[in-house]
């Protein structure tokens, strides 16, 4: 690397600055999860969805019945009008009495219609909502139990899109599938009634129906594509906007506004074009349907009119025909759209069942013991071999024991297996070989809940939940009183800054503690562990550099936290390491050396090498950990 290449203003480079920047994009470079248009009907998925619908099947039956009644009343109304005209108003008919009866019948029909429409929509609407909420709850509940190794591999965002997006797209399906029963009945009902009223006129009038079917068949695929395109470019433009908002400081620092604006303009313009195209596709159906309606109406007028003139047809029938023609094409329109709703629902259903089918690998044994507070508080690893991927062990035959009340620091470069040790004590994963025991019991023999009660954990990244400071501190023990919380906060030195917050202990924590500094969040998570009052504390020390003042507070808090407890600490900081009773050095999943600071310094092994390398912290060395380890091993042998 020469100075010239980085610093000099390259002429050829500056010249082509008017062209499109080759490396610039706004918004995600990744395509949105493509909407897979699967089959419109997949029996396996339908069965899984049915399992959620089953508890509400009575409601579904009721609403299907209501839909049938509703559709029948819709069909009946033109018939009643026809009856009133032909029998009530026609000369020589029954006159006023029959008209009155027709009106009574009309009112009766619309009352039934009113009731049926209420039941149909209300029952199916509410049942659909319940099914959705049940599905979401089942997924969320399942995610509470699936293995962490699966969770590690899966992005939260992707899970959220399944929990919210996919579940919501089932809603349309659940609501409309009952209604499409109504559409089908309406379609066949109209056909039936028209043929019954007059077979010849009926057939001729309905000749336009298959035409519309065929037109829709050709129209649907490109139209659907144009709707999807519009949808995609819209989310692309919105994604770019969101990025522009979240990254605005970086954008301004690096003076990218001009370039970004023009890139965004392209996205927005593509969006505009696609929306106009989609609007064209949607609207082109309007004159087609109107023309076909016009043809049908003209047919009824010419043909039906002549039949009326020739006394072969009652004038009321002609009026009824004209009424039915107005409703003619609606069911065809919604039924063809229904097909895409089915397809979407199937692909969403597929993704939902995928989540529900993730295996739960870690479960309590039948008759598992409850770990109680009177156990001795020791932690022991016996010949533990463990890994996340087949044939790639992260820990190899590791054995060590932490005696009750002792503090042991684990150190080692990144990838040495420190964090895995911590996860195993908590049985986040099961070991491949050997065993991990807590208080003399194999962690696989005790209930997970009681293990959680006796082993408190402090993670490297302090994670705070939305809620007050108080709620966060007593996260584990919701029964803890305010006094206990304050006492714990005082003990770890968090009380002072908490009381200086706007609402003290009742201050709302926003955006995962964005309104607090890292050090403050750390102290709160210490207080949380203290309130949990577990016999064993497992702690992953923060690597990030905290300012020295806060760091001092944390060191003191740590001391207080470890008092009278067994401590297993993944340590990065010199002060922590030196304060430990014993230090275990891991490297590439093997236990390399152990002892206290002075003993290890004398050994001149990896520990002393790491120690002299670093100044005030014991951070991991991601890039040259390999060389370091080799060097250290070379020295040791």
């Amino acid at each position, binding site marked *: *690397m020469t*100075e010239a*290449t*980085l610093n000099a203003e390259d002429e050829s*480079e500056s010249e082509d600055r008017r062209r499109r920047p080759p*490396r*610039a*994009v706004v918004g*995600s470079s990744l395509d949105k999860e493509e909407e897979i248009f699967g089959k419109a009907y997949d029996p396996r998925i339908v069965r899984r969805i049915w399992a959620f619908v089953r508890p509400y099947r009575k409601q579904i039956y009721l609403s299907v019945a209501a839909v049938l009644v509703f559709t029948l009343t819709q069909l009946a109304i033109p018939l009643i*009008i026809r009856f009133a*005209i032909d029998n009530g*108003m026609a000369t020589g008919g029954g006159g006023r009495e029959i008209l009155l009866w027709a*009106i009574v019948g*009309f009112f009766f029909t*619309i009352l039934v*219609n009113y009731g049926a*429409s*209420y039941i149909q929509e209300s029952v199916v609407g509410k049942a659909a*909502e*319940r099914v959705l909420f049940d599905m979401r709850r089942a997924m969320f509940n399942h995610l*509470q139990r699936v293995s962490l190794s699966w969770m590690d591999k899966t992005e939260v*965002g992707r*899970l*959220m899109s399944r929990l919210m997006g996919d579940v919501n797209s089932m809603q349309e399906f659940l609501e409309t599938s009952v209604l499409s029963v109504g559409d089908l009945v309406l379609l066949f009902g109209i056909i039936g009634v028209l043929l019954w009223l007059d077979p010849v006129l009926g057939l001729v009038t309905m000749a336009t129906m298959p035409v519309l079917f065929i037109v829709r068949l050709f129209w649907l695929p490109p139209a659907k594509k144009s709707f999807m395109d519009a949808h995609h470019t819209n989310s692309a*433009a919105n994604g770019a906007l969101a*990025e*522009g*908002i979240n990254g*605005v*400081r970086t954008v301004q620092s690096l*003076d990218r506004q*001009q*370039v970004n*604006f*023009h890139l965004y303009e392209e996205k*927005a313009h593509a969006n*505009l074009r696609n929306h106009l195209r989609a*609007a064209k596709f949607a609207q082109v159906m*309007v004159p087609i349907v109107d*023309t076909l309606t*016009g043809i049908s*109406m003209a047919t009824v*007028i*010419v043909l039906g*009119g002549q039949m*009326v003139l020739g006394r072969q047809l009652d004038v009321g029938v002609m*009026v009824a025909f004209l009424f039915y023609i107005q409703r003619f094409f609606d069911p065809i329109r919604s039924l063809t759209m229904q097909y895409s709703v089915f397809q979407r629902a199937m692909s969403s259903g597929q993704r939902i069942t995928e989540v529900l089918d993730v295996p739960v690998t870690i479960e309590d044994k039948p008759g598992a013991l409850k770990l109680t507070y009177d156990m001795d508080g020791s932690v022991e690893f016996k010949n533990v071999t463990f890994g996340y991927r087949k044939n790639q062990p992260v820990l190899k035959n590791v054995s060590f024991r932490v005696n009750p009340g002792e503090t042991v620091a684990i150190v080692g470069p990144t990838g040495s297996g420190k964090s895995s040790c911590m996860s195993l004590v908590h049985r986040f994963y099961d070991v491949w070989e050997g065993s991990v025991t807590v208080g003399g019991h194999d962690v696989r023999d005790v209930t997970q809940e009681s293990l959680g009660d006796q082993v408190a*954990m402090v993670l490297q990244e302090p*994670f705070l*939940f*939305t809620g007050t400071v108080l709620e966060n501190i007593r996260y*584990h023990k*919701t029964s803890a009183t305010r006094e206990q919380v304050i006492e714990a906060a005082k003990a770890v030195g968090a009380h002072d800054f908490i009381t200086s917050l706007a609402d003290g202990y009742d201050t709302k924590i926003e955006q995962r503690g964005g309104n607090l500094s890292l050090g403050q969040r750390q102290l709160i998570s210490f207080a949380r562990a203290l309130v949990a009052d577990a016999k064993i504390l497992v702690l992953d020390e923060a690597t990030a550099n905290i300012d020295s003042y806060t760091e001092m507070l944390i060191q*003191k808090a740590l001391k207080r936290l470890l008092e009278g407890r067994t401590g297993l600490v993944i340590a990065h900081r010199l*002060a922590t390491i*030196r304060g430990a009773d014993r230090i275990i050095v891991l490297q590439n999943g093997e236990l390399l050396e152990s002892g206290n600071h002075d003993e290890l310094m004398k050994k001149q092994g990896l520990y002393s090498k790491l120690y002299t390398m670093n*100044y*005030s*912290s014991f951070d991991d060395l*991601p890039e040259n950990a390999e060389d370091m380890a080799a060097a250290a091993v070379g020295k040791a042998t």
Partner: protein
Amino acid sequence: MSSEAPRSAYSPGDAMVHVRAVQNTSGRSTLWRIMALTWRHPWMVIITIASTIIASTLQLAVPRLLGIAVDQAAGLLDGVKAEEALWTTAMILFGVSVGRGLFTMSMNYFGEAVGHHTAYELRLAVYEKIQRLSFSYHDKVHSGDLITVGMLDLEGVRMFFATGVLRVILLGILIGVGAFMLLTTDVVLGLLALSFAPFVAWVSSTAQLRLRATWLTLQEMLQNLSRVMEENLGGIRVVRAFAGQKHEMQKYDVASDAALRLAHQRVDIRVKSTSAMNFTFFASMALVLWVGGEKVIAGEMTVGTLASFLTFMTILQMPVRQLGLMVNSFARASTCGNRLFAFLDLEIEIKDEPGAQPLKLTEGTLRFENVDFAYPSAPFRPVLSGVSFEAKKGETIGIVGRPGSGKSTIAHLIPRFYEVTGGRVTIDGQDVRAVTLDTLRKAVAVVQQDSFLFTTNIENNIAYGDPWAKEQRIARASEYAQLHNYIMGLPTGYETIVGERGVSLSGGQRQRLNIARSLMLRPAVMVFDDSTAAVDAGTEQRIRTAMKRFAKDRVTIIISHRLSSLMHADQILFIDEGKIVERGTHAELLELGGRYRALYDLQVRPGDDVLEAAE
């Protein structure tokens, strides 16, 4: 838009044109402003309105023609003439139907097109405004609120023309002319035929307004629900570590049940209004049939006229029910437009002053002269007071101090992220306020502690400030930042996608990428604002060595908690409560035995004695 690729898009253009167009309409009411923006596409608006008038007139002709046809068929004329008349009516009706279809299409299409074009321009205005508003604005505004403005509010304004304005015209003609036609034919029957309209309009409007209000609440509840889930899944280790599953499910159920209850309420509102509307409509149809039937029997009216009354009602039914949507559209456009325009009307605090000149770099000297600063949100709490120092090309300045002492503020004042409240910052004698922002920011790079990763590949992320850069230069920069080896170790190397939905980088890796990104700018002033906090000491040492040659040609400012990062600096400033309390080289400050010395002892010899001494 590949076809227009070689336009002069990437040299200074007029990105603000749409913002100005919006600002030009200020001073009027929100809905008028939307109309004024719509009028930027006069031909489309005219076509749409003309189509609407024609389509609704043709629509009104249909029931009339059907009535005539029924009368013709019922034999009010004799044989042959009647047949001819039927043919004529049928042909006219066919023509009217085709015409109605075409003009409805034109009305809908152009109506939407007007909305989309307006939305397109507003989108660009919003985006540009977001990019140009200064840090102090973004500090106080939640990013979620801006997203609401840019997505939902924009949508509300977009829909206004098609669902609000056009509906008014359409309904006005249908109801107005329709009512005139009906009432002139038969007053009583006309009134009956229209009797459903006011009731349905009222039910539909109140239901829509209530649905809108509850929709907003429901969205909040669902957001709450998804926040509960997101937190749980993001913090799944904490949840499991503290055996919190039961507690979490309770939290979930509370949020979920509340949302479900409201969803059920919404179903009720919707269902009640639709079934009531249906019933009213049919009831008035029954009345028309009754009264009309009596009239037909009495010979006062023909069957055809009655049929035309009835079909007229079916035609009117849909638009009247949609009246609620129209009312909703007005309400929505007014609130959304208010927020959107309030945002676009904002004054940009930091921009090029009139007569600003491009920054001219000569010596490469940075100078703070008696600088005072307070954040605009708290003008009476000074953050910096009387800060003065000078840095020449090739020099390194170290700045150290407690959190909140004002260290980072110094970094932010150089590229004018914030404006000084007293004194001045100069580069080669030019006040930063007197030069153009783009030349200033090209000359000053601030490496922040945490910066944003864009969801694109590593190469594009490094070249973010210089997207024309050549590959070799990107590789050089990342070598300097000690990131190259890591990148080459990835299966797809520089092509690896990072960011929100890509491979996640550790804190240290992100910071190194950040350093590489700033190196690409070849700035005259390079500021490291605690930008190696998550990088381990060994790697930092190597970065520092690599940077030595790079630092010869520029001013380097290092702000850090870690003394090892800055003790080699030519001058170290110790800041406390916005003032420089100690200054000098590392050796001088150790000699002084003041605050710097105490900090040094704490960091380098962290034994128990120091912990106690520091108390």
